[in-house]
């Protein structure tokens, strides 16, 4: 019984976060009905989270940038020893023609340099910021006065290109002269047909090794090419010749202008540089030169089981999977070594019976030959194939030259870049080829006749017929019979043979690999063979299998999720992620239909293997063969979303079809997301092939395609779970278009404060994370999957983190901050109380204050639709540490407060709140 006046103090030290489960009448005001776009500061105050805005590329006509997973590739720079990162993203879509090329891209930096060149101002600055509604604005100021404004769009479609913006920022404005330059950029000089050397205007800003976005007018199609050589008025690229048109632009000029990051008052009096992040295609042997398309998956990729590409960092490389949810085509694991994409591992070679020829010095008698493919990747890892099966040959006097036929690997996806020297020369740093697809970034392997040894060099510039290289000059030959005229991208063939009277193999020679095949002629006497072959000791270097999902466990690369081997888990040799012995696999004891849907390393000796509704524990030493498979649960909790598993503080967190769970040491905490259970109750959708999404199903969550990230800076596990519609955002757009709609959810688990939060955005069709999430250089990136004329395409978003008010936008618009602690009936839900006062504390000493307005709505008697009272607190000073609201005669049985800020560029701070109630008169009445 309430007697007399009482006060109730609430702060966030004990706040339990979002709780959608408890009935209003049974609720605890320490729970929250809304905890939307809020976060707790280090001082346990509540404020608005930072928003996301477009970046990376925005969109260009016809070009499809990553939409199927992003990943932070972390590697050690062997030159400096420094640990570096690249953000990479996968493009898998291949549904609307060659304009959408599958492959990987990486985020690189270009620039917009603005300078003030005349007019006598003492200050000049450039700003680029969201306007709070639907657009970004570019602005030039001289002496603090705006002299030029360019209003753009929100970055989701091309309205203004960077070149157009650059042009508009160049000129004389109110007597002040500004100039702007984009890098890399060039303007085509004249219509050109079938060229791989493009004539451009003088003054281009390209460097060798950069990718260039251009329009191949013969298709027409937007594509990226690699610039391998430059001159004052020419750009040379690798790949098939193209047609280009006069005055069109190449490079970042073609991107949306909205790719410019938010920039406030950048000093440009001399000059100021705005760094522009943009996607750059990664070279690929798998995807050839970006025109000979080998997609990640079927061209009919509107697949119900489609999920993002799975990535793993290992041995300074990134290993990633290809989707094989329907196709019977083998799609084995790929790798990116910082230079190019290739298939991981090397295939076991087949050696045909050698032949004997005249000449040579091979000792007369019987010899057994084997050979291996081998390659040193861009990070210095040496990968060797299994040896071929042996072949025996007998030489006779005078016929002591043995020919070995080495099959080529062209078109297989393995690294095959190579060239054949057309003219011997030297010493020199240039090579002329009859043909070459070697390019800048490759490390070439060739024979130096001066030192009579093989050497490696880095390519400085190249085209299809020549290259220049770094390092000491080399002398080389053309022709010959021992493959000394081949140059490869550090891919080699190691030829081994036995000496007379022995069974041990010795290295004959390790020659450059040639893509279309080569014949090696062995003329070396036994006495000159020194290096002995070390057998593999029952650990064959079988190449990786086809799997959908990858993880690292016990220093092995582990894969699974192959539709045609649905229960099989594969693992590599320890420390050798590209070798998958055929014995390194096991079938989980599953009685559930479907394929393995997720994998994660639980503890050092436990590998968690999931199907959507099942969990299996693979316990023991995988490579030691001492393991067992445990069926922990079937038809219960599983994990449909490999891309949403994160290991945080030694515990796996992931979504199931029934909510989020924790897993540690084989023990699952099912109650982990009980507060969110209403969202997951009978609310997941498993798409059927060739079945159009019904209207009812567009509200359901497609947990399969959930994505997540460990936002360790904010101490949060963030998970986006899409609800999907057709390409037009409506049912009937076709199955598997994988476009998130407004029913999608994004929840965050604040593991520092142990509470759930919800993220919403101004427009989920722009700001979603279906295309993956990543922390790259300590910044949060989301990759949205958005509708582009019926196709799902990628749109990179980045959390704004400038430390000012521009952090609090949802792209160009306001980001709504809503905190609604649950109903408080003071323990007497049927008795009226009189609520008199509300006090709001705002006293976080580590908070960067900015003026803002906190809106407070008061709801009564379990009606959370119509507020009984609404007021605001305008915060204009950091000294407003305590503000008091006199409530208007609120007689109510229960009360609920909603604290909001939906003003663009603002956030409100609530350290706590306190309210005061008094007993009403009719204590004997039970009202409703």
């Amino acid at each position, binding site marked *: 019984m309430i007697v007399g006046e009482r006060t109730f103090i609430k702060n966030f030290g004990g706040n339990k976060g979002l709780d959608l489960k408890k009935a209003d009448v049974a609720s605890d005001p320490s729970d929250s009905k809304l905890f939307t776009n809020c976060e707790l500061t280090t001082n346990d105050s509540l404020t608005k989270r930072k928003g996301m805005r477009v970046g990376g590329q925005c969109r260009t006509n016809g070009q499809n940038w990553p939409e199927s997973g992003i990943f932070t590739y972390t590697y050690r720079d062997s030159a400096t020893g420094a640990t570096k990162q690249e953000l990479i993203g996968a493009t898998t879509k291949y549904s609307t023609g060659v304009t959408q090329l599958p492959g990987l891209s990486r985020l690189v930096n270009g620039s917009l340099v603005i300078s003030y060149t005349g007019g006598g101002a003492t200050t000049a600055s450039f700003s680029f910021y969201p306007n709070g509604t639907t657009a970004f604005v570019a602005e030039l100021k001289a002496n603090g006065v705006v002299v030029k404004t360019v209003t753009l769009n929100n970055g989701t479609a091309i309205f203004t290109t960077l070149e157009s913006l650059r042009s508009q920022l160049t000129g004389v404005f109110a007597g002040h002269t500004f100039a702007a330059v984009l890098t890399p950029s060039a303007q085509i000089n004249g219509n050109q047909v079938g060229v791989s050397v493009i004539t451009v205007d003088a003054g281009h800003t390209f460097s060798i090794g950069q990718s260039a976005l251009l329009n191949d007018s013969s298709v027409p199609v937007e594509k990226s090419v690699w610039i391998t050589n430059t001159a004052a008025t020419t750009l040379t690229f690798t790949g098939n010749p193209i047609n280009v048109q006069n005055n069109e632009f190449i490079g970042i000029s073609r991107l949306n202008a909205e790719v410019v990051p938010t920039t406030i008052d950048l000093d440009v009096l001399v000059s100021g540089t705005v760094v522009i992040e943009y996607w750059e295609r990664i070279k690929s042997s798998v995807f050839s030169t970006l025109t000979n398309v080998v997609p990640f998956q079927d061209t009919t990729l509107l697949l119900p089981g489609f999920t993002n590409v799975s990535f793993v960092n290992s041995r300074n490389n990134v290993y990633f999977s290809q989707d094989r949810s329907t196709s019977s085509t083998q799609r084995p694991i790929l790798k990116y070594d910082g230079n190019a994409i290739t298939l991981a591992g090397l295939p076991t070679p087949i050696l045909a019976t050698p032949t004997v020829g005249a000449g040579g010095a091979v000792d007369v008698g019987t010899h057994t030959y084997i050979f291996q493919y081998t390659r040193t990747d861009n990070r210095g890892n040496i990968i060797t194939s299994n040896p071929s099966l042996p072949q025996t040959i007998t030489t006779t006097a005078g016929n002591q030259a043995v020919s070995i036929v080495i099959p080529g690997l062209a078109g297989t996806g393995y690294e095959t870049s190579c060239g054949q020297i057309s003219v011997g020369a030297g010493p020199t740093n240039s090579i002329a080829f009859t043909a070459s697809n070697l390019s800048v970034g490759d490390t070439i392997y060739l024979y130096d006749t001066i030192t009579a040894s093989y050497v490696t060099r880095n390519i400085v510039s190249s085209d299809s017929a020549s290259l220049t290289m770094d390092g000491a000059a080399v002398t080389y030959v053309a022709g010959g019979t021992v493959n000394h005229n081949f140059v490869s991208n550090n891919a080699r063939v190691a030829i081994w043979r036995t000496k007379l009277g022995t069974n041990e193999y010795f290295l004959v020679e390790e020659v450059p690999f040639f893509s279309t095949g080569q014949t090696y002629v062995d003329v070396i006497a036994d006495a000159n063979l020194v290096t002995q072959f070390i057998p593999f000791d029952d650990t064959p270097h079988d190449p990786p299998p086809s799997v959908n999902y990858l993880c690292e466990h016990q220093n092995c690369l582990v894969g699974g999720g192959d539709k045609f081997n649905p229960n099989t888990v594969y693992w590599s040799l320890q420390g050798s992620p590209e070798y998958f012995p055929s014995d390194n696999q096991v079938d989980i004891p599953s009685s559930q239909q479907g394929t393995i849907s997720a994998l994660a390393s639980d503890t050092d000796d436990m590998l968690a293997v999931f199907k959507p509704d099942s969990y299996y524990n693979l316990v023991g030493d995988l490579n030691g063969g001492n393991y067992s498979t445990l069926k922990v649960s079937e038809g219960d909790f599983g994990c449909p979303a490999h891309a949403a598993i994160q290991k945080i503080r030694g515990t796996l967190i992931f979504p199931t079809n029934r909510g989020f769970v924790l897993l540690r040491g084989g023990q699952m905490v099912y109650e982990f997301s009980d507060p969110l259970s209403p969202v997951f109750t009978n609310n997941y959708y498993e798409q059927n092939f060739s079945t159009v999404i019904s209207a009812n199903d567009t509200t359901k969550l497609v947990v399969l395609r959930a994505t997540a990230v460990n936002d360790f800076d904010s101490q949060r596990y963030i998970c986006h779970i899409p609800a999907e519609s057709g390409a037009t955002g409506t049912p009937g757009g076709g199955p598997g278009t994988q476009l998130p709609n407004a029913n999608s959810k994004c929840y965050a688990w604040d593991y520092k404060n142990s509470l759930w939060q919800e993220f919403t955005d101004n427009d989920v069709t722009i700001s979603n994370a279906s295309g993956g999430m990543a922390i790259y250089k300590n910044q949060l990136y989301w990759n949205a999957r958005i509708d582009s004329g019926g196709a799902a395409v990628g749109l990179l978003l980045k959390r704004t983190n400038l430390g000012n008010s521009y952090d609090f936008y949802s792209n160009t618009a306001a980001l709504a901050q809503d905190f609604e602690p649950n109903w408080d009936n003071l323990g007497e839900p049927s008795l009226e109380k*009189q609520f008199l006062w509300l006090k709001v504390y705002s006293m976080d000493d580590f908070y960067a204050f900015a003026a803002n307005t906190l809106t407070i709505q008061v709801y009564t008697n379990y009606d959370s639709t119509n507020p009984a009272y609404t007021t605001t607190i305008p915060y204009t000073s950091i000294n407003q540490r305590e503000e008091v609201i006199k409530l208007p005669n609120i007689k109510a049985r229960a009360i609920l407060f909603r604290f909001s800020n939906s003003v663009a560029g603002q956030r409100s701070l609530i350290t706590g709140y306190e309210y005061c109630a*008094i007993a009403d008169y009719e204590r004997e009445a039970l009202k409703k």
Partner: protein
Amino acid sequence: MRRVDFIITDARNISRNPANPNGSYSISDEEVLRYINDAQDRLQGVISATKSMDKIFEARTAINLVANQENYSIPDRVFMNRDLSLVEVSSDGTLGNYVVLNKVNFFNRDTNTSSYPEGYTKQSGQIYVIPIPSSSTGSLRVQYERELDDLDKRRGTVSVVTGLTSTSFTSITIGTDADETSTPNLSTIDYVCIVDSDGNRKAYNIPVGSYDTGTNVLTPRAGFTFIKAGDSIAVNDYVVFGKWTTTHPNSFLPDNAERYLIHYAAESLLHKDSSTDLVAQNAKMLGIEQDILNSMKAQTSEVQYIPQLNYYEW
């Protein structure tokens, strides 16, 4: 007494109902005004009930007789529509010819006509003269207890007056301080009054025909005329809402009563808040009320003879 805004502020302060951080009030000024007007009404009622000889609320007005008209309205606000104290008649309207009319019962009503009436009765706030005058040359002079004007905040400043005559005006324009957001506001109110900066009457009971929120022009209802001779409107006068309203408590009410208005309103606010301070505040308010009544009941120091209707005949 001070303007009612300040009285409101005092009542808010005492009852702890200050402005919220955004300047708004959880309990509106209109509600506090209601309490203050209630206080004023109660105070007038209890003072009036003492029937003090001082008759502090007394007022008088002259009404022209009209040939063959029996009933006459008093163009002012008579307390409870009944508290007349004296009705006189002048046969020719001159000041020196007023004689007291006898109050008679309604059943003494005489509908014959005569040169001038000899008595009166009253009903529904109107005076019925007996007999009915046959000419329009005379006048009545009525002395009555006037009900105090209600109090209201300034709702806007008159910036322009158009078509002003001695009996009417065409429109007024109100300045940027025009109240267009309160409940009621200029768009919803039926009547307004115009007062000067001291709350003195300028023009009362103006029916609102229309109000333009864009131009801030208020136009009176068609056919409107000032209800009292001498009413007028000038630039920088103030608009208040309702009939018989002003911004300052009427001078009939002693300054001493201001504290009562404040504490009465504060007590009402605390009552609404179910405050534990209500008991003390109620006692304080009643103490002030009793204090004022005691003062009103007490004889003044003047020598007062026994009242005689025609004392000069003694």
